[in-house]
Every structure is written in structure tokens, then in C-alpha cells.
């Protein structure tokens, strides 16, 4: 290898470009803040989170702690979690009320698998996985996807306006399951031996695909805009409404 004057110039240019790239990449990273906190959790622990915008991911784990980590985009939001008699409350709407601009906050929260989970956001995606408790509720006020995987809860509610909803979990006897979207697709992946009564309504598209559940006791109502039926003992109640999208049942 030889380095002449031309080679030295090239090396200088490369070094300068590296510096420029470093600062260009480091710029956004330095605009983010991180938040992390851990709370001990009792048997009846409940997570109640209300985000303004950003993605919320909740994962069940086999520990008796709730660990909240968040990345805060600029301008950074205020986060003031509270522990109210076993309920961990994080309310970014209240904590930042009146602020003209608040950056996205992306949460990753680990909860005991038996914790009740009640999460909500104005804009953004919600993901919940590996939770087996009495309640899983996810609501997006406007747009975003809801993904619930490996869920075993007696009461499940997922609601958004624009975006997809995916549920992969058990239907427990006596349980209550409600999925509602304005525009998107709703996919429900449930065990074939589930016992439930259901009403599925897709008024605009009439797209209600029962998949492997098509052989059950089904009634097609209102010109096919609604399907009602029963599987097994019908011990659980399931209600699915998609105003401008389709509904699909998938065997787990």
C-alpha cells in the first residue's frame, strides 16, 4: 500500500465523512431519553397505562415485579408513575396536559403473568403477550394496531378506530371477549375446542370468515352482514365488530 498526496486527501475526506455520519446518527439518539423503574407486585397487581403517542409493549414474565422502561422522544414527556394499592398507574395524558407538543413515548413493560393489564393510547400500537390473568384491555383512541398473543384471560377487550387487531389466545369458559374496529382487519386465533357464543358483524364488507369454525351452529343475519353462532357449550361470550373491515377466525 502506498499513500501519495491523492491518497492522503482521500483519507482526509473519508475521516471527515465518518465524523459527519457519526454526528448525524448520534443526533437523534441524543434527543431520546430513557426511563426505567421497577415496582414490587402483589397477587392482585394491575397495570393501568394511558399513553399519548408511541408504542406500548407489555410482556408477562415469571417474576413478581413490574419493570417499566420507556424511550422518550423530544420534546420528552413527563412520566410520573404511581403505585395505588397494588395498581401501577401511568397516565401520560394527565401528566402532560396543556403541553403543546410531547414526543412519542415507547414503553416496554414486563409484568407478572398473572397481572391485570389495562392499557390505552391516543395514537400508536399496543402489544400484549404472555399474560394469563383476569383482564386484558387494550384501547387505541385513533389509529394503531393491537396485537395480543399468548393470552389466557377471562375478560379481553381490544378496540381501535383505524388499524388491525390480532388475538391469539384461549377462550375461557364464562369469559367475555370483545373486539371492535372501525377500519382494519380483525383476526382471532383460538383453540378449536373453545366453548363460546359469538356475534360477528362486518356491515360494510360482509367479510366474515369462519375458517375451521364454519361447521358450527351458525346463523347468517341481516343479509350476511352479521353472523351469530355457538360452539361447544357456549360458555363464553364473544363479540366482534368491524365497521369497514373484515373478520377472520383461525384455528389455533
Amino acid at each position, binding site marked *: 500500500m502506498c499513500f501519495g498526496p491523492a491518497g492522503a486527501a482521500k483519507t482526509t475526506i473519508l475521516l471527515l465523512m465518518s465524523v459527519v455520519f457519526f454526528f448525524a446518527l448520534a443526533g437523534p439518539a441524543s434527543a431520546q431519553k430513557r426511563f426505567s423503574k421497577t415496582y414490587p407486585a402483589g397477587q392482585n397487581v394491575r397495570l393501568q397505562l394511558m399513553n*399519548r*403517542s408511541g408504542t406500548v409493549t407489555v410482556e408477562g414474565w415469571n417474576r413478581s415485579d413490574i419493570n417499566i422502561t420507556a424511550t422518550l422522544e423530544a420534546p420528552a414527556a413527563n412520566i410520573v408513575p404511581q403505585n395505588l394499592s397494588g395498581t401501577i398507574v401511568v397516565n401520560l*395524558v394527565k401528566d402532560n396536559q396543556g403541553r403543546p407538543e410531547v414526543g412519542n413515548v415507547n414503553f416496554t413493560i414486563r409484568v407478572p403473568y398473572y397481572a391485570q393489564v389495562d392499557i390505552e393510547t391516543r*395514537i400508536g400500537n399496543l402489544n400484549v403477550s404472555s399474560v394469563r390473568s383476569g383482564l386484558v384491555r387494550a384501547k387505541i*383512541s385513533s*389509529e394503531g394496531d393491537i396485537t395480543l398473543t399468548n393470552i389466557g384471560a377471562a375478560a379481553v377487550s381490544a378496540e381501535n378506530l*383505524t388499524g388491525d387487531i390480532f388475538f391469539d389466545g384461549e377462550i375461557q369458559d364464562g369469559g367475555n371477549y370483545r373486539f371492535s374496529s*372501525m*377500519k382494519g382487519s380483525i383476526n382471532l386465533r383460538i383453540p378449536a375446542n373453545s366453548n363460546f357464543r359469538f356475534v360477528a358483524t362486518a356491515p360494510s364488507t360482509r367479510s366474515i370468515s369462519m375458517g375451521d369454525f364454519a361447521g358450527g351452529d351458525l346463523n347468517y343475519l341481516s343479509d350476511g352482514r352479521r353472523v351469530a353462532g355457538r360452539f361447544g357449550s357456549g360458555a363464553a361470550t364473544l363479540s366482534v365488530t368491524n365497521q*369497514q373491515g373484515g373478520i377472520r377466525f383461525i384455528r389455533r
Partner: protein
Amino acid sequence: MNCEVCKELLSAFLDNELDESQAGLVREHLAVCSECAVVCEDLSAILFTCTAEAADDLNPSSAKAMWCRISNTIESEIKPPQAELPQPAKGRFWSLSLPQLASAVLGIAIISSLLTVVGIRNYMQPSGDDFTTRSAATMSTFEKVLAKVGLIETPQQSRERRLQEQRSAIAYWNDRVQARRMQWDRVTRDAFDRNLKVIDESVEQYTHILQQDPDDELSVEMLDAVMSDKMNLLRDFADL
């Protein structure tokens, strides 16, 4: 002695103008006949008033004339004893004939039956919301009758009322949103507008369907749901 004779002799009896045998008969009758005894007491009271206090005011031309008038008045009041008008029972201030009584009992029975049925139906189906999402076609005959007489709302009326309530709530929250939306960042404004548009598309769609077919229950239900969604969207963003 019967009542008629007794009353004819009462005036003379009180004036001590009867012989002893007639006076004795009158006394015996008064002892057993409460009706004549009451008349006798009234006459005595009048006589006492006239003689003790009001003699001057009344100024009768003569005692005989006065007694004649009193006697005539009493006779005119008591004359038709044969008609035997039913004496009103003590404390009974109304009287009904048998048909009136039967009608009253029937009326009470019908009204109480209606109230019982309405009460039971309300207990069994207490949700007003259900009624707002029903069509007139699903009304029972009984409900139609009640709606006709104005005892209950028709589904149409119920739906109109519910829609009006929802529109009022939406207008309220919309004012709140308009007051705040200038403070939102562009991403929030765009997301809000996009989703409001999606909801309004559905509102328009169901309103159109219901104009074509007011009895389409599913569209009634869905319109109710999307109006609630619209209200929730406005309320949620009014907090920002």
C-alpha cells in the same frame, strides 16, 4: 202509631196541645223511632231558638202562623217517606249505581293490569338502549297499543331522542376539541382528522341506509355505535 201520624202530631205535641192519650202514643213512638226522635229534636231546637233569642228578629205575625210554616216545611221535607230514599251511610259522601260500580271496577282492573304488565316488561327488558336499536316491525301488538296511547316511546321516537342526545354530546366535545386543536402538533392533528373522517363515512353510510329502510335494525345499531365512537374520539382528544 206510624211515622207519618207521629210527624203530623209533633208540632201539637211540642206545644202541649195533645190530649194525654195522643201525647202518650207520640212518646212511645219517639222512644222506638230514631228518625222521628231526630225530627222532634230539630223542632224543639227551632222552638227554643225562636222563643229564647230570635223572637224579635223573626217577628212572626202569630205563634200559630209560625208553627204552621214550620209544620209545612217539615212536611214538605218528610213527605215522601214511601220513596224510602237510601239514607247515606255515616261517612259515605258518594254513591254509585251498579253499572257505574262495575265500570269503575273494570277500569281499575284494566289499569292495574296494564301497569303490572308494563312494570314486568320493564323489569325483564330494562335497557332503553335496546329499544333505540329496534325497529317498529319488531314491536309487539301490546307495545304498539301502548305507543299509540303515548305510554311508551316508539323505537323511532326512542332512536331520535338517543341521536339527539348523542349529537348534543358530540357538539359539546367538538367545541372542546376546537379550542385545543391549535396546540396539537401536526401528527396529532392529522391522525385526529383522518379518524374523524373514517367515522363520518360510517355515519353517512348508515344514515343513508336508514333513509332507504328505516326498519333496518342492524344499521340502527351500527349508527348508534359509530356515534358513540365519534363522541369517544372527541372526548379523548379534548384531553390533549
